């Protein structure tokens, strides 16, 4: 890039540059004792300098690892920056992990220092200190409750600062000298994957990889030093490191740390960030809060809200995307609505100043997505993982779609393997899994492509659709891609469907088990004066079957629109006679369906689905919450679903 030769190539050098360029602009804020405290970039550089000197005085050396554990606090971010300045590597850990879970990461990273937030984290580390002999220094930020702690490896933050001041006075050039020794190919951070299935893996990123990624990100959404971001996601997660810490270094914007994890929404309202990332469930819980508050509002207010939300649904998306075809009346009403409803609502949510909002990690429901977008919030999706510095695909403003994650980012090469797996090569790729050469070789092939483990494909416009985990994706007998989770998610977006389990691998047709949402369907039944005695009875009602058949038909129509998926439409479904339950091993503890286990357990139902029977008697043992076991007997009915041809859906629009 022309004119960029002088751009600093490590985070520490960026910090020094920022301290000069934006010396009086806010770099960090934290709400303390009810008041937002501000540190400018010059302040931050000063704090980091003293901390670095303090760490050096305690014996922190180039290449040493420094564990960081706690909520998003300025001092913990400074600790990360200090480790980098000394040529060390920060290793943020999940602050809510229990002590035993931290052992592995601390051992694997061979952390010598740990900077932790408070007594809670100190207690955990002291508990496992015997298993982590390399951990020689534990530094705590919040002194509360620490009065009686005496331990040779324990240091207060104040001690560190004191030692830092003395060290700095003795060696005034130490800090800048150390930064000068740094190289862009040094490790900048090790981020541990959460490891739900196996031992966590330490993803090692260099300064070069992170900075290359972040520069693209900052350009992509036009961030500047005038932006604000709320740091509320775990520091150990790649998203927080990348979007908060790394982006702030490049763009110079301000990181705002909430007062406590419980006050995030209030703090967000006060700060009004211009950039926001959240997984879909956060958006969902926000929407639920709004809806509950509205349901309690006075009838007039509710009527106004409902009216303008209808206007927003009709016209909001097109207005946001600058598309034509909005009636003049709707345009005028939308302006009025902005004044009466959308504006105040966005203000309540702390979203008034948002330039962009992102979501990712899992599929987002259409209603949810459209709700925010129709309010004029530029909510977009992205795709990526820790190993790729996230940033594989992002949706461009004005080119946002519900069912894709956008085209590959500039500089990122994406390939789809024969088995449907998405492969990625980019400057932001990790260097390796820490101390796991075998796993690294498995993940990155000889061409330098990282195997994401996700299955997806390019649609006709070059956008990527992520459909499932690659290992779960199968092929139907005719070769059509069968992505069970993709189909299940589409079903689960209907409020009446709580869980769905799709089958179709090596088969001619796709069939699904449906677990109705007893609360939503029960409510629906009550409004129709439909009497029922319980889940089993409700699920078996013909009216409920009609209701679910409608949902299935809509999913099929949706699938038929997509040439790659048209062959995977649902042919038959049944409403399960019992709710899927983690106690019966049908779901994992994180509520993911265990497809294969369910198939074995309910083999007669599968058999009936594929042999075209109209009903099937079944008897199932189940565990009650108090530990007793019982048996559910039922005759489960099977319903044929409407299947569409591409021509039919085209005609329907």
């Amino acid at each position, binding site marked *: 890039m022309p004119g960029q030769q002088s751009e600093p190539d490590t985070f520490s050098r960026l910090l020094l540059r920022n301290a000069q360029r934006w010396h009086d602009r806010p770099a960090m804020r934290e709400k303390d*004792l009810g008041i937002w405290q501000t540190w400018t970039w010059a302040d931050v550089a000063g704090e980091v300098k003293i901390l670095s000197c303090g760490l050096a005085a305690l014996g922190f050396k180039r290449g040493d690892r420094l564990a960081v554990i706690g909520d998003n606090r300025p001092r913990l971010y400074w600790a990360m920056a200090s480790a980098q300045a000394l040529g060390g590597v920060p290793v943020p850990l999940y602050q809510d992990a229990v002590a035993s879970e931290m052992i592995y990461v601390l051992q694997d990273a061979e952390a010598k220092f740990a900077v932790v937030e408070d007594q809670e984290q100190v207690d955990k580390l002291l508990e496992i200190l015997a298993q982590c002999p390399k951990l020689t220094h534990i530094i705590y930020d919040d002194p509360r*409750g620490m009065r009686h702690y005496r331990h040779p490896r324990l240091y207060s933050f104040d001690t560190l600062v004191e030692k830092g001041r003395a060290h700095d006075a003795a060696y005034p050039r130490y800090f800048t000298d150390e930064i000068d020794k740094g190289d862009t190919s040094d490790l900048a951070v090790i981020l541990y994957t959460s490891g739900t299935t196996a031992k966590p893996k330490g993803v090692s990123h260099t300064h070069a990889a992170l900075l290359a990624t972040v520069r693209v990100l900052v350009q992509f959404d036009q961030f500047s030093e005038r932006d604000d971001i709320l740091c509320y996601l775990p520091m150990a997660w790649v998203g927080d490191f990348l979007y908060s810490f790394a982006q702030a270094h490049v763009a110079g914007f301000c990181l705002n740390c909430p007062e406590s994890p419980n006050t995030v929404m209030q703090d967000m309202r006060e700060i009004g960030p211009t950039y926001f990332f959240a997984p879909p469930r956060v958006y969902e819980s926000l929407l639920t809060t709004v809806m509950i508050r509205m349901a309690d509002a006075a009838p007039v207010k509710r009527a106004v809200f409902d009216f303008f939300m209808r206007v927003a649904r009709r016209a909001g998306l097109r207005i946001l995307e600058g598309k034509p075809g909005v009636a003049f009346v709707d345009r005028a009403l939308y302006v009025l609505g902005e004044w009466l409803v959308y504006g105040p609502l966005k203000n309540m949510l702390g979203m008034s100043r948002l330039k962009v909002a992102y979501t990712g990690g899992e599929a987002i429901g259409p209603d949810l997505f459209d709700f925010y977008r129709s309010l004029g919030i530029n909510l977009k999706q992205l795709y990526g993982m820790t190993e790729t510095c996230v940033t594989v695909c992002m949706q461009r403003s004005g080119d946002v779609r519900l069912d894709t994650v956008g085209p590959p980012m500039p500089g990122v090469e994406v390939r789809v393997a024969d088995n449907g797996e998405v492969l990625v090569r980019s400057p932001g790729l990790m260097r390796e899994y820490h101390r796991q050469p075998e796993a690294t070789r498995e993940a990155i092939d000889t061409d330098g492509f990282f195997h994401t483990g996700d299955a997806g494909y390019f649609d006709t416009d070059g956008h990527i659709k992520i459909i499932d985990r690659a290992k779960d994706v199968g092929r139907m007998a005719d070769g059509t891609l069968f992505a069970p989770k993709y189909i299940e998610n589409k079903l689960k977006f209907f409020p009446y469907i709580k869980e769905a389990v799709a089958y179709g691998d090596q088969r001619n047709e796709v069939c699904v088990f449906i677990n109705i949402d007893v609360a939503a369907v029960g409510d629906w039944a009550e409004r129709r004066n439909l009497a029922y005695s319980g889940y089993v009875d409700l699920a078996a009602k013909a009216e409920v079957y009609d209701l679910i058949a409608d949902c299935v038909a809509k999913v099929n129509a949706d699938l038929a629109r997509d040439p790659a998926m048209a062959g995977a439409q649902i042919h038959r479904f049944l409403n399960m006679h019992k709710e899927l339950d983690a106690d019966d091993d049908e779901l994992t503890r994180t509520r993911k369906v265990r497809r294969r286990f369910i198939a074995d357990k309910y083999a007669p139902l599968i058999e009936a689905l594929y042999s075209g029977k109209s009903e099937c008697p079944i008897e199932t043992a189940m565990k009650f919450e108090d530990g007793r076991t019982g048996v559910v007997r039922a005759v489960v009915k099977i319903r044929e679903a409407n299947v569409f041809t591409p021509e039919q859906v085209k005609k329907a629009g």
Partner: protein
Amino acid sequence: MQAARHLGDAILKIEDIALAFGGVKALTDVSFDVREHEIRAIIGPNGAGKSSMLNVINGVYHPQKGRVTFKGVTRKQMRPHEAAKQGIARTFQNIALFKGMTVLDNLMTGRNLKMSAGLLAQALWFGPALREEIEHRKVVERIIDFLQIESIRKTPVARLPYGLQKRVELGRALAAEPDLLLLDEPMAGMNVEEKEDMCRFILDVNDEFGTTIVLIEHDMGVVMDLSDRVVVLDYGRKIGDGTPEEIRNNQAVIDAYLGVKH
């Protein structure tokens, strides 16, 4: 705010207190002392006179007989606001907060006695009154931080669950920066988690601020864990006094709780 956990001299001395309402003898010749920085529990079966004892200490009831000496000053008759001025704060068995006011405002009322600006200055919120309020607000914010109730700072108390209301009430008592804190069943009606939180806060208050605490509590586990010494009352008389271990093995106490054949 000093280094705590070394028990000082007696800060409060109760000597031969007798209190009767007409013919009902609520307390009969009760004597005990509370040492500085101590957590002192008062236990006893229902109607033993525990709350009456607290009410004597903070001047709501006036005993017919006996002496109360607080910080070396012996008093005969005292009204509650005088007790408050001397540095005694309390919480109540059934929460006594201003339900319609926010948590913050409730805590600010705890600072009431420390405010010196005149009515007019306060009403106009000007000059010294403004500076004073900022100072008080700082103290209150520190308590909010201490009790981890930042997220409900501006929530009206009536909207809070019971356990949190109890915590707010403790906060209001702390706002007065008391030397002696009287807690009347701080854990009544709480679930296990809320109880654990409250125990933690009581220990922290005692530890961080060095506040002397007298508490009434029914949960024996809590009493035995928290307190340095325990007084046991039964039918208005003191039947035991000592460390939790001594009380556990005291035959008179066991009889009072489990009952004996007559």
